[in-house]
């Protein structure tokens, strides 16, 4: 079976800062990484192979030429094939246009049985591309997956809820979005790293290669536009109550009452 894993190259937001004046990310000197939950998705695919399934793992990403590095890392982890959708026509895509582009790429592969995405990307936090991609491909979707298995040609997944989980079964092909609860992604093997760069290749597909309609991709095909991005003003400093337990509780209750909260 063929598993397609979608991934996004993102700035490592643990090291990123916001330019206060323009409201944009300061990208200079910030390392680019595979979006963490996309790594969980790759790991799930690798686990299915190690559980004995005969799988081909194809990783696909839409991004600038530099996203090559993220795809090579996925190859080093154990993916079999890597595709980069890269074209100026894809630039400026919102989540809908991105899902269209990824969908076209996946359809261009013709056969696929399972599509895995990370739950959400750390730079945008939208969690939209996975569901939108499932809609585009018109296949069942299970989001927030923390455990999955392929049983009798169906996928069975545990879907995380606020207060527990639900177990969902879906026919293949299906799309699942994977959370960081699912696994701990492996370190790529040292030999895999050097092989990924010296022996494997990343296929680059442009908009024309996947027969993209320019009205459905890129900035032009995006129904949403970012008007402004900004860092929210910090709220006022908190106040520490002091005194004995009783004094602190009394003071707290008074304050809540005065604000009509209780």
């Amino acid at each position, binding site marked *: 079976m063929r598993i397609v894993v979608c991934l996004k190259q993102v700035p490592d937001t643990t090291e990123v800062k916001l330019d206060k004046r323009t409201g944009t990310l300061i990208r200079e000197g910030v*390392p680019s990484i595979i979006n963490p939950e996309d790594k969980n998705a790759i790991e799930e695919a690798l686990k299915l192979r190690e559980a004995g399934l005969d799988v081909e793992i194809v990783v696909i990403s839409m991004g600038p030429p530099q996203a090559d*590095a993220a795809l*090579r*890392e996925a190859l*080093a982890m154990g993916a079999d094939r890597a595709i980069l959708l890269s074209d100026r026509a894809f630039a400026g895509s919102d989540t809908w246009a991105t899902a269209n582009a990824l969908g076209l790429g996946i359809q261009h592969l013709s056969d696929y049985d399972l599509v895995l995405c990370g739950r959400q990307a750390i730079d945008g936090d939208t969690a939209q591309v996975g569901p939108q991609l499932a809609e585009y491909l018109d296949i069942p979707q299970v989001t927030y997956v923390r455990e999955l298995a392929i049983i009798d040609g169906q996928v069975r997944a545990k879907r995380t809820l606020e207060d527990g989980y639900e177990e969902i079964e879906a026919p293949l092909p299906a799309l699942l979005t994977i959370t960081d609860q699912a696994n701990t992604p*492996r*370190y*790529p*093997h*040292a*030999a*895999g*790293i*050097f*092989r*990924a*760069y*010296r022996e494997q290749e990343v296929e680059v597909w442009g908009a024309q290669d996947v027969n993209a309609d320019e009205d459905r991709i890129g900035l032009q095909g995006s129904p949403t536009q970012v008007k402004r991005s900004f860092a929210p003003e910090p709220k006022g400093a908190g106040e520490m109550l002091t005194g004995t337990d009783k004094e602190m509780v009394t003071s707290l209750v008074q304050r809540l009452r005065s604000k009509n909260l209780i």
Partner: protein
Amino acid sequence: MDFSFAPEYELFRRMVREFAQNEVAPLAEEIDRDERVPWETIKKAAKIGLFGVPFPQKYGGAGGGEIGYCILMEEINKVCASTATVIGAHTGIGAMAFYLDGTEEQKQKYLVPCAKGEYIAAFGLTEANAGSDAAAIQTRAVRDGDDFILNGSKIWITNGDIADVLTVFAVTDPALGARGGVTAFIVETAWPGFRVGTKETKMGIRGSSTAEIFFDDMRIPKENVIGRFGAGFLTALRTLDVGRVSLGAGCLGGSLACLEMSLDFAKSRYQFGAPIAQKQAIQWMIADMATEIEALRSLVYRAAWMLDTQGLTREFSTISAICKLYGSEVLDRVVDKCLQIHGGMGYMKKFPVERMYRDARICRIFEGTNEVQRLVIATNLFRKAGLRIR
């Protein structure tokens, strides 16, 4: 001239750094205290190929060459010199000897499992009366039909008590001395006649085991002679030449960790109402540390690049000795300044500086003392100038 690392090296460095931070750094204090690197850590490192980084993939290695191996030594040494020493003795000298001079059969039989980390290797040269003076070794190998019978002992052998295979140097013709009279063998520690003696307690790199080993009438098949019979001294020199570059890389890693800790500490330690970083005395130490570290970094990776692109030349032999000499002395000065910047905090066992200070000291001694490195460098230079140093 291009000083950038190819992207595969960048990814490899990031992977090793994450591994070192997550899997090794939290254990560094315990490794030092308990005088052992946990097997689990060794197995984890082996599983992702860290026991065969420089060797080609056809021999089970990562194919990272000397540059990749130096990156590994740099990054592991940033967090734990003991763990780096276990990997280094295995890869950089133990298995390196039969990678450089072994037959294809020997590589298939021994290098492949070593590169995969299924076997641990060690390098047995030093003896009670022979270290820098390698010609004075007394371990004897005597021919017996198709075999050799090995008798003698080695001291201070890193990994000596945990190794599966050893590269051992023995006298095969006392009349010929070092050149022609010494042969290198691959020995399996499971063979009858192998015995581990005292395990040393050391000042630093305490988590790496340093053991005395004995050979009592050990039978070695002639297929296990490394390289030409009688050319063992050459194998030792070639192996040590290669090992010295990665030793320099390890010193680079230790030095970088010291610099980073010093910067952090100087920013957060307040005296006289300001961070001590505001004092010129501290600034000068930081500047001197960084200057020497940058020089070392260029030196180490240039030497690694020379080996990867040109092989073991005479020029490489000189530069690798310079790497070892300069690297260990830079580390010495840097770790000393780091401790000084940390003041009393640096002297306390609960901070890593104290351990790093102890770990650093061996670098001026092992794999050929710095005095021997100076000798090697001067001998090579005078040979080029037409004078033979005796």
